[in-house]
């Protein structure tokens, strides 16, 4: 009888692994999502500004993805569970590419990990930065609330992001342009999904309408931050590399008006949520909700910076 110290030895004994390695699952190691992509920063562009801009767009997608992912197994029905998880996955993919682009543009933004850590740059950015280093708008970090809250927030988020990425498709940075072109296809159906549910809830029952109106009142003051221009956005926009969010205000307004009119919902009158001494999410100033979100999202990675998965 053969004695094996673990089950794999027994398997290896009977199969010539080298002969047919494809029977094994190898899909769990890390790989650069920009492998082979030319990430040279255009000559006249400040790499640090480009990296910060990528973090802004990437962190929006990452944090929104995490919030949508929290619905997994908790959505009102299976179809919505799958829809929200699909949307979260698209945004996670956008985040991964954008954080990788940030790291390639300016490696100094990537947190330093212990010698021998296998964590790739985009994961180091996602899991080893504190809340003060995140550049996402506060809209994406507040808790999910009920389904109506999630629909109202996703409508505002996807409407602004689709308008931004549509213009970013013309970026002089070919990497950002490529990420944007792909993202536009995805955000088109994210926005349609949120718009359709907004209309359904508004025109549904008294209870669904009541919840939707309350949700809109809550999230409305958070969306102007996505349309405000941070100096870094102004700088990259001036070079034709990024987009100044102020440019898409009219377009965003028209789309939201279309949804509000179809839904017979008044535009909320509440103004933008104030920052603190002019600082908002884009500057790294967040609500405490982000700290809690990150604590959960990052805990495993931070416990095992040398971990192989």
């Amino acid at each position, binding site marked *: 009888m053969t004695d094996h110290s673990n089950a794999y030895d027994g398997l290896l004994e009977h199969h010539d692994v080298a*002969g*047919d*390695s*494809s029977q094994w*699952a*190898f*899909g*769990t*190691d890390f*790989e650069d*999502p*920009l*492998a*082979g*992509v030319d990430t040279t920063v255009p000559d006249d562009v400040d790499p640090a500004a480009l990296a910060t801009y990528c973090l802004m767009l990437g962190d929006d997608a990452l944090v929104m993805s995490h919030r949508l992912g929290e619905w997994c197994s908790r959505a009102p029905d299976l*179809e919505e569970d*799958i*829809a929200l998880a*699909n949307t979260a*996955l*698209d*945004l*996670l*993919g*956008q985040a*991964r*590419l954008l954080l990788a682009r940030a790291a390639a543009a300016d490696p100094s933004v990537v947190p330093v990990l212990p010698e021998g850590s296998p964590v790739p740059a985009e994961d180091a950015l996602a899991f080893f930065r504190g809340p003060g280093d995140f550049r996402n708008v506060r809209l994406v970090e507040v808790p999910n609330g009920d389904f109506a809250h999630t629909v109202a927030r996703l409508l505002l988020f996807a409407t602004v992001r*689709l*308008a931004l990425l*549509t213009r970013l498709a013309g970026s002089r940075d*070919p*990497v950002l*342009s*490529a*990420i944007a*072109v*792909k*993202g*536009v*296809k*995805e955000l*088109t*159906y994210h*926005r*349609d*999904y949120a*718009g*359709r549910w907004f*209309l359904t809830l508004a025109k549904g029952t008294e209870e669904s309408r009541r919840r939707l109106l309350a949700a809109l009142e809550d999230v409305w003051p958070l969306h102007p931050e996505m349309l405000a221009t941070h100096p870094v956005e102004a700088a990259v926009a001036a070079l034709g590399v990024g987009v100044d969010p102020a440019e898409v205000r009219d*377009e965003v307004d028209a*789309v939201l008006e*279309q*949804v509000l009119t*179809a839904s017979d919902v008044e535009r909320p009158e509440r103004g933008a949520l104030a920052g603190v001494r002019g600082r908002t999410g884009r500057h790294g100033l967040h609500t405490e909700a982000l700290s809690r979100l990150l604590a959960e999202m990052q805990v495993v990675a931070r416990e095992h910076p040398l971990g192989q998965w």
Partner: protein
Amino acid sequence: MVRAAAIAAEVRDPEMPMLTLADLGVLRDVRQRGRTVVVTITPTYSGCPAMATMRDDLVHRLADAGYDARVEVALTPAWSSDWITERGRQALRDHGLSAPGPAPSRTGPIPLSLLPTARAVTCPRCGSVRTDLTSEYGATACKALYRCADCLEPFEHVKEI
């Protein structure tokens, strides 16, 4: 090299294994660079979780044939469901999936659509055109769920993108 390209072209998509990577349209290039075969693939969706598996399958299939292979990513041009080959579309139908229609082509601001996506979808089992959308989202990012009103079977439709 011709042989390496042929091997790469026959590697299958891990989520829709009736399709080869070539039929799915994600295999963009196979070329020799020094002693290495460089295979270029493109993701279907930004968050496509099958990319790592595709890469590993390519590397290992080519290694089995004696090639030292490396896989690179091309982000542009962005993948479109129009790139699924005719052979791929037939393979989808043969396996009970509905193949995508023409992808939308747009310029300028994208209009909001508050009504369910309208598609002329034919049931891949009985050929009926009386089909109903049950969910715009399915088990993978690229599929929607339909039901045939005649044979009553549910089936998946690969979305136009």
